[in-house]
């Protein structure tokens, strides 16, 4: 984890996370496979998150779930998990670990700064804990995960520099 910006009311860290994108029907068999590998139940509805000590699972849409490791792993272990999922013909699992960048944003003024870059409604009553969103931040596609008092924002790694520059610009202005 690397501290990017820290000022009164805002802390931004860049994290190394492992992520697997899962596609499938979400039927009983799918649930069983996920549960067997992660001990997690599927989130009850779209844009909700379930988690345990090791994993976080977010439901992006009716047929897509994103699985995060909460602790560091060797890449080969993640690839092994991808391979395990892909051994079931009803699941497509793709490793997203290093193709995405992860920013942990916290602090009491995080909504203020982020709302310079996105229209998204971060108010707790609209974006409660353990929910997620897919939206534009600084004109780029991002996923935002609300975990207690922090947001994890992910975007494609090719946009890492642009995202950081826009974030810094928003902080400075």
């Amino acid at each position: 984890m690397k501290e990017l910006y820290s000022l009164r009311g805002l802390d931004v860290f860049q994290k190394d996370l492992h992520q697997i994108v899962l596609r499938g029907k979400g039927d009983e068999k799918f649930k069983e496979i996920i549960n067997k590998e992660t001990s997690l139940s599927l989130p009850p509805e779209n844009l909700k998150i379930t988690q345990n000590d090791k994993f976080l699972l977010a439901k992006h849409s009716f047929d897509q779930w994103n699985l995060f490791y909460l602790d560091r792993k060797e890449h080969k272990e993640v690839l092994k998990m991808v391979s395990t999922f892909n051994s079931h013909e009803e699941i497509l699992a793709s490793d997203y670990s290093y193709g995405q960048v992860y920013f942990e944003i916290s602090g009491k003024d995080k909504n203020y700064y982020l709302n310079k870059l996105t229209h998204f409604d971060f108010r707790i009553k609209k974006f409660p804990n353990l929910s997620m969103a897919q939206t534009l931040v600084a004109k780029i596609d991002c996923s935002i995960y609300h975990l207690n008092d922090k947001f994890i924002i992910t975007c494609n790694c090719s946009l890492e520099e642009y995202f950081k520059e826009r974030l810094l610009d928003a902080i400075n202005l």
Partner: protein
Amino acid sequence: MSSINNTKSFHLISSQKVSFTFDGKKLTGFKGDTIASALLRNNINLVGRSFKYHRPRGIYSCGIEEPNALVQIISEHNEPNARATVKRIYDGMIVESQNRWPSLKMDIGAVNNLLSPIFSAGFYYKTFMGPKGFWKKVYEPIIRKTAGLGKPPKEFRSKSTHHHHNVDVVIVGGGISGLIAALKFVKTNYDVLIIEQDSFLGGILNTSKKIKEINGLDTIEWIKKTEELISKSKNIKILKDTTVSSYNYSNHLIALEDKAVGSLPPNYKPELVLHKIRTQHTILANGYIERILSFRNNDLPGVMLAGSFEKFVHRYGVVPETNPIIFTNNSSTFSLLKSLIELNCKPSAYVDNREENSIEKSTLDYLKNNNIPFYTGAEVEGCDGRNIIREAFIRHKGNIIKLKTNMLCVSGGINPDVNLFTQSKGLIKWDDNLFTFKPDKAFQNTIVIGSASGNFNFQKLNDEIKNKLNFLKEVNDTKIEIISNVENDYKISEIWDIKPEKESLWSKSFIDIQNDVTVKDLRQAITEGFDRIEHLKRFTTNSMGTDQGKISSINSLGIVSKILNKSVSEVGTTIYRPPYAPLSFSAIAGRNTYEFYDPKRKTPIHSWHIDNNAVFEDVGQWKRPWYFKNKKGETMHQAVQRESKQLRESAGILDGSTLGKIEVKGKDALEFMNLMYTNAFTKMKPMTSRYVLMLGEDGMIKDDGIVSKINDQHFIATTTTGGAPKVLADMEEYAQTEWPHLEVYMNSITEQFSTFNISGPKSRAIMRKVFSNIDFSNEKFPFMTFNNFKYLDTEVRIMRASFTGELGYEIYISPKYALELWKKIFHSGKNLGLVPYGTETMHLLRAEKGYIVVGQDTDGTVTPIDLNLNWMIGKNKKDFIGKRSLSRSDTAREDRKQLVGILPLDKNKKILEGQHILEINKLPKKIETPIEYLGHVTSSYHSPNLKHFVAMALVKGGNKLMGKKVYVSDPSKSETIPVEIVNPVFLDPENKRLLS
């Protein structure tokens, strides 16, 4: 004319002096003064020249509605058309008047006023119809030179930013109504945003003496306590110096905050913030606007709206004139009268259009007790003066009374400010007692309160707000007791324009002061048939200035209704459109300019490319190396020739990470792929790859790439860089809508793998050095096969494929390990002549082999058959996207444009892309009739390996023209270049290099 300071005004208490210049003259004002209040403080009333007639103009109002006092701020990049009544002064500010030459007092353009008979309504439409050719050479240059008021700003980089808000309630206006509404939400669960255009809350409480006390407190004290209470409530936020400019669908409001009020905009901080607000409910408490009356020369400097005069007195602490004449048709001016008397300033006269029995007793008593000359049932017929009003003419009981004066305060009544309400698509209704439009039915969750709703009675204000907000749960019950200084009921008589006593070329009665539209223009427009209000507006340009006719648009409706003998309701109103007040393009653009105009995507190797002198080109949002300069001064042509030659002699490496990559899996993946692409995948062996084409439903080539088959349920497809999002979106769309019975899923893995293409005769040797445990022999690793290999803590996928026609490999690796591997390959290949190359060299090399680039050699009208790629079509497949279209008569005809190779007969000749293929060898000097052409050059490069140009072209019936001599046009000459039509594979047609 002489002004005095109102030292009782809160504005002047502890205010600092500020110096600025106006037209080169150094002046002094107070901190917080607008340019207008500071000019009035310095007894300057002439501030500009009018748009069309260049008439002298002064300060007409005290706010955003100002039509006249538009100035140029030289110290702010020449910012033109700044409203002097809004813009605050600061030390060192340089202000100039506009639209005058050589000086404000002596403006040559004023001759236009004498020519006014020919500049009447519709002048432009009638005049610029002819003679033929005059528009381009005469009219347009003159109009361009004279158009506008100020000069364009100098180039500068704005620091405007955007900010998004999501709230439950927005209160527009922080005046008395807005503050009472806000109190309802203190410490509730509602997120509330109050938007106030001034630097202070309080509105009319600061600008007049209409209200004496609220809840037993002096008004200024009440504002202070209320603001404290609201500020402590965490759920309420206040934005000051912010003007709501648009009220859109879905309760979406746009507001502009001026962050540099009263100071020179700093270079390092935003000067403007554009707030984009989404809300559940909007409370419009944005007050009213006072309107003018039309009489002869009602535009002269010194004529000012009465309410604005009072605002200058209290809000800015300047009494513009100690003895003005007041001309009114309503009860609102009583407040001004009292304010003046309390400051020991006695009006020269009080002229009320209402008959004495209609005027409030308190007003009459006040006039009598203070010995103020007053005229009831009277009107100001007109006024005279040169650069300022000198005399006013009062028509009273059939007589004309001439009075000397330097200021005439006019009130034609007050209108609820319905602009935002109508922007929100709310309906307005005419009120026959108040002679104005009032909000009627809201279209969105809009609540209008106070004077904005037409409630001008302060006693009824609290009850109105309580009733209108009672549908909201758990809001506070507030008790507000207001003691006013004026009569509670607002009364008005109907009068719109006053018949002039005398007429001259100079004298005019204006209805739109900013656009120089007169009452006569309205009459003329109606006479000419423009009797619909929207037509009339456009014909006369009435209310089409930057002020949008805020102080006069209702008057024009009144005048038109009288001319047409209709009610104002029947005449209707024009549509109020955003923005409410002008806002700059830089505010709209925010930070989405220059380096942030478009997101930039960079590959994991980007830093290496920079270190190695890559010149980049934009491909979509990606930054791709175009070519690498190996020495200072090397041109692009030299670099590309060098890279191309070196690759064919030894090896080259390309960063292909930007290529789209899609993983497809599911039990029906095979069928899905067979449907998506033209190629047949059924018999394709696992762990092999294939060059593929994707068509649109029209049969035209949409994208190409390589599909790698892991097994019948699992594929990986690559796409073009620019086509990646569209191909994935199309796959999803077809999977979900056309073939929902297929169980198949797809993920974009473009970013999950960095891709390097290594090709050239020495590429195998380099690969062996990097991956010493892998057998790269032809037998173990044949062309178009792939496999996964362990590499460090991860895996690497290597495919044998080539886009250069040389022996080649594609390496796919997780981005985390990409740069390290790239460096390793480069280190390993150094002694073997490995060269990094960019997209331009890639294009050259593929052209030598006759490989196409989708989007360059195709243009959305090209089928696979046109490119002689019939072999890529799975003829035995039941169906695929575009199959049916390939058998249409048009797509099957033989004389379609087909891809051919082009070789110059003179090998020294240069062929340019995009040039026409012709059958004639010489073009006429002047082309008068269309020249038939056979096609056009799609790709052309100088081949360093063949030492001449090679080109590809789409040519009508090209397949049958092999060996034919045709000509290629040259844009710089009438001469054409003789060329031969050949097979487009110029190099290694036997594929010996590719399969080596």
